C-alpha cells in the first residue's frame, strides 16, 4: 500500500466514523444558543443594532444636502452621499429658498450637516426647536446631525481599533502559549509592561508628543497597547488546550504544529477574542470620547460625542449638549458591555450552570 493509498483509506474511515457518530454539539453552538437565549444579550444587540443603523443611515437622517432632488433640470439621487460637484456650495435651506419651477427636493429628517454652521447669533447654543430637534452647539452646528454622525465616527473607530487589537492579541497570545520558552518570556514581559501604563494617560501623552496627532494616532496607540489582556487570556487557553489528550492524539497522528495550532488550538481562542472585541470597541469609543472631551488637540473627525460633551463644560446652561451626546455614548457603551458580558458568561460553563443552592 502506498502512502497516498493509506492516507486515503484513513480519510475514508474517518469520514465513515463521522457519519455514524451521533450529531455532536460544539462549544460554539452551545455558546451561541446560550447567547441567543440571554435577555441581556438581546437587549445589548438591540441597542447596538440601533446605533449601527443610525451610523449607517447618518446621511439620510441629517445632511446638508437632500436625499433626492431635481435641481436646474437635473435629477440627483442621494446627492448627500455622492456629493455631485454641481451642488457645491448649496444646502437644503438655500435650495428651498432658491428653487424654481420644476425643482423638487426630498429633505432628510434634519436638513443640516454635522459640520455646517448655519450662522446667525440666534443660531448659537439654541435650545430645541423646529428644524433643530436637539438644539445647536456653541458654533451653531445642529446637535442632532452631530449626534447621528458621531455614531458613525464612534463605531468605525471602535471596530477598526478592535480588529487590530484582536488580531494582535490572538497572535501574541497563541505565539507565547505555543512557542513557550524565550518567546513566552518576552511576550509575558511585554504584556506586564504594557498593562502597567494607564491607557488614557498614554493616549494623551502620545497625542501631545506626536507632531500632528490624528484620530488614527489614538487608534493605533490603543490598539498597540491594549492587546495585552486578550493575549493573556489566549495564552492561558492555549496552555490549557495543549495539555489535553486530543492534542496529544492529533500529534500522535502526525499533525504538523501548524495544523495543531490552526485546527485544534486557535478555535478555542475565538471565545475570548469575541469578548475582548466587544470590550475593546467599548474602550476605544470611551477613550476617544475622553480625549475629545478634554479638548486635546484639534478634533479631526466629522463629529464626535466627546467633543460636544467637552463643549458642555464651558456652557453650563446648555443641558442638551450633555444630554443627547451623553445618552448616545451611554447607550453604545451599555450595548457593547451587555454583549461582552453575555458572551463571557455564555462561554464560561461555570457561570452558566449555576446551581441555585445558595438562594434560599
Amino acid at each position: 500500500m502506498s502512502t497516498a493509498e493509506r492516507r486515503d483509506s484513513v480519510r475514508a474511515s474517518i469520514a465513515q466514523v463521522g457519519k455514524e457518530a451521533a450529531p455532536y454539539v460544539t462549544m460554539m453552538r452551545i455558546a451561541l444558543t446560550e447567547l441567543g437565549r440571554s435577555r441581556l444579550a438581546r437587549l445589548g444587540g438591540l441597542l447596538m443594532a440601533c446605533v449601527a443603523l443610525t451610523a449607517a443611515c447618518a446621511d439620510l437622517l441629517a445632511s446638508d444636502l437632500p436625499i433626492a432632488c431635481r435641481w436646474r433640470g437635473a435629477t440627483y439621487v442621494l446627492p448627500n452621499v455622492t456629493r455631485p460637484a454641481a451642488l457645491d456650495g448649496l444646502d437644503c435651506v438655500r435650495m428651498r429658498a432658491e428653487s424654481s419651477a420644476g425643482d423638487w427636493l426630498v429633505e432628510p429628517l434634519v436638513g443640516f450637516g454635522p459640520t455646517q454652521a448655519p450662522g446667525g447669533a440666534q443660531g448659537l447654543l439654541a435650545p430645541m426647536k423646529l428644524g433643530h430637534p436637539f438644539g445647536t452647539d456653541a458654533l451653531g452646528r445642529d446637535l442632532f446631525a452631530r449626534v447621528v454622525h458621531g455614531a458613525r465616527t464612534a463605531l468605525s473607530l471602535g471596530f477598526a481599533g478592535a480588529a487590530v487589537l484582536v488580531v494582535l492579541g490572538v497572535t501574541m497570545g497563541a505565539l507565547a502559549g505555543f512557542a513557550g520558552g524565550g518567546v513566552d518570556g518576552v511576550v509575558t514581559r511585554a504584556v506586564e509592561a504594557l498593562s502597567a501604563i494607564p491607557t488614557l494617560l498614554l493616549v494623551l501623552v502620545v497625542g501631545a508628543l506626536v507632531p500632528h496627532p490624528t484620530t488614527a494616532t489614538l487608534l493605533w496607540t490603543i490598539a498597540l497597547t491594549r492587546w495585552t489582556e486578550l493575549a493573556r487570556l489566549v495564552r492561558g487557553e492555549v496552555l490549557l488546550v495543549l495539555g489535553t489528550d486530543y492534542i496529544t492524539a492529533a500529534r500522535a497522528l502526525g499533525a504538523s504544529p501548524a495544523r495543531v495550532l490552526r485546527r485544534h488550538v486557535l478555535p478555542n481562542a475565538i471565545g475570548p477574542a469575541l469578548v475582548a472585541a466587544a470590550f475593546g470597541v467599548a474602550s476605544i469609543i470611551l477613550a476617544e470620547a475622553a480625549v475629545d472631551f478634554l479638548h486635546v488637540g484639534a478634533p479631526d473627525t466629522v463629529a464626535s460625542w466627546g467633543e460636544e460633551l467637552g463643549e458642555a463644560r464651558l456652557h453650563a446652561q446648555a443641558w442638551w449638549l450633555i444630554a443627547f451626546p451623553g445618552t448616545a455614548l451611554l447607550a453604545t457603551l451599555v450595548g457593547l458591555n451587555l454583549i461582552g458580558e453575555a458572551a463571557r458568561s455564555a462561554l464560561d460553563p461555570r457561570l452558566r450552570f449555576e446551581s441555585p443552592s445558595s438562594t434560599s
Partner: protein
Amino acid sequence: MLRHALRRLLWAVPTLLATSLVLFFVTTLAPDPSRVDPAALEDGPELDQARRARFLDLPRFVNLAPADVRSRAAAAMAHVAAADSGREASARELRRLGGAALPYVLPALEALAPDARRRVALALGPLAERMHLAVASDLEEPEAAVLFWTRLWDDRALDFSRPAVERAVRRLAEHGSDDRESDVVALDTLALPDVVRAMTARIDPVTLARLTRIAQHATERGPAVGSDATRVERERAVADWNEWWFAHTTDFVALDGASRAIAIVTETRYGKWLKRIVSGELGVSLVDGEPILSKLRARAPTTLSLCALATLVSWTLAVPIGAIGAWWRGSAFDVTTSALMFLLYALPTFVIAELLRRAAPTGAGGGAQMTLAVVALAAGSLATLSRWQRTAMLEVARQEFVRTARAKGMPAWRVLVVHALRNALMPTVTVAGLHLPTLFGGAVVVEEVFGLRGVGFETMRAIEVHDAAWLMAVLLAAAVTVTLGLVASDVAYSALDPRVRELLGARQGRSAL
C-alpha cells in the same frame, strides 16, 4: 513569605525594563527639532543643544563606534589639515573641544605635512588665547604658531596628564586663590570632569563661583554664579552644569578599555535616557521651569489622596453590595444594584464628573470639590469592583463548605461573613491591582473637571505646551506605581490565602505548617 515578596519584587525588574523600553519608544515619537522647523536650522548652537539634550545624534540601542574626544579631535584635525569644505566648522569644533583635545592633537602635529601642520596650528590660535597661553597676535604667523604648539607640548606635556589636572582642580577646590584659578583656566576643557564633579560636591559659594567661572570660560556657555548668589541660583546653576555635562561628557573625555566597552551600551539614546531616569534626573518643567522631581513631589499628595480615598469609598461600598447581591441572587436588591452598577460601569468617568460638577452649588469650596472628585472617581471603581465581588461570591456560594455550614444550622449572616466572604475577597484583592491604571486615568479627568491641582491637572497643562519631560515623568511614575501595586496585591494575596501560603512553604522546602 518575605522570600516570596522579594522574589516577586525581583521579577518586577524585567517588567520595569520592558516598561522603560515602551516609554523610550514614546519619547522617540516626539519630533526631531531639526526636522520640524527648518528655520531652526539657522541658529546652529541652540538647535545642537536641543538635539544633544535628547541624544538625538546617538544610535538608539547599540553604539559600536562611540565618539569620544580623541575621535572628534582627529576628525576635526583631518578636515582642517586637508583644508576641505568642512574646515571652518572643524576649526570651531577644535576650539569647542579645547584643552581636552590637545593631548591628541599636538603629538599628531609632527606626523602632518608642513602645510597641514601650519593650518592646524593656525586653527588652534583662538584656543591659545582662551587658555591664556599666548596673545593671538603672536600666533598669526604660521611658522610661529607651529613652533609655539610644538614647544608647548615638549615643555608642558606633563601638565596635561590626568593626575596633574586632578591635582590642580583639587587644590583650587580646597584653597581657592586667583593663581590656582588661572592654573585651571590654563587647562581649559581638560579640567571639566573634575570641575563639574567638584561643583556637585562643594556648596561653598566662593569656590563654586570660581568653578562655574572656569567652566563658563572653557566652554563659552552656561551660567556662572557670583559669590553672592542665592541658594536657589546656585542649585540651578549646578543642576544646569550637571545636565550639560551628562549630555556632553564624551566630547571632553576619552574612552579607553573598559569604558569603551561599556560605552557601546551606555552611549546610546536608550542608555543615556535610562541612566538619567534611574538617577532621578527628570529635567525641568517647560511650564514654569521648576525641576520635575520637586514638582511631582508637590503635586502627588493631592492625586494620591484622591485615589486612596476613592479606593477606600469604592471598596467599602462594593464589597457588601457585591457580596449581598450574590448571596441573595435574583432578589430585588440584587437586580436593582446589578442594573445600577451596570449603568455606572458603562458611564464614562468624565460624564459622571461633569454631571456632579453641575449638580454642585456654584462657589463650593475646595473641600466640597475634593469630595465630589472622590465620589466621581469612586463611582467608576465601585461598578467594576462590585461586579468582581459579585462574581467571586457566586463562585464561593456554590461550594460544598458553604452548604455544610448552612446545614449545621449556622446563622446565615455568619456563613456569609465568616465563611463565604473571606474566600470571596481573595479574587477581588488580586484584581484590585489591575484596576490601578484605570484609576490613574480617571484621576486625570476628575482633577481637570474639578480643577484640583494634582498631577493630572499639571499633566493637562503640560500637554498644552508639549512638555515632554513632565509627560514622560508622569507616565513613568504611573507605570512604576502600578507595577509595585501589582506586586503588593500579589504578595497580599499569597499572604491571605492559606493554600498559596502552603504551596510557597512547600516549594521552599519547609514544612507546610
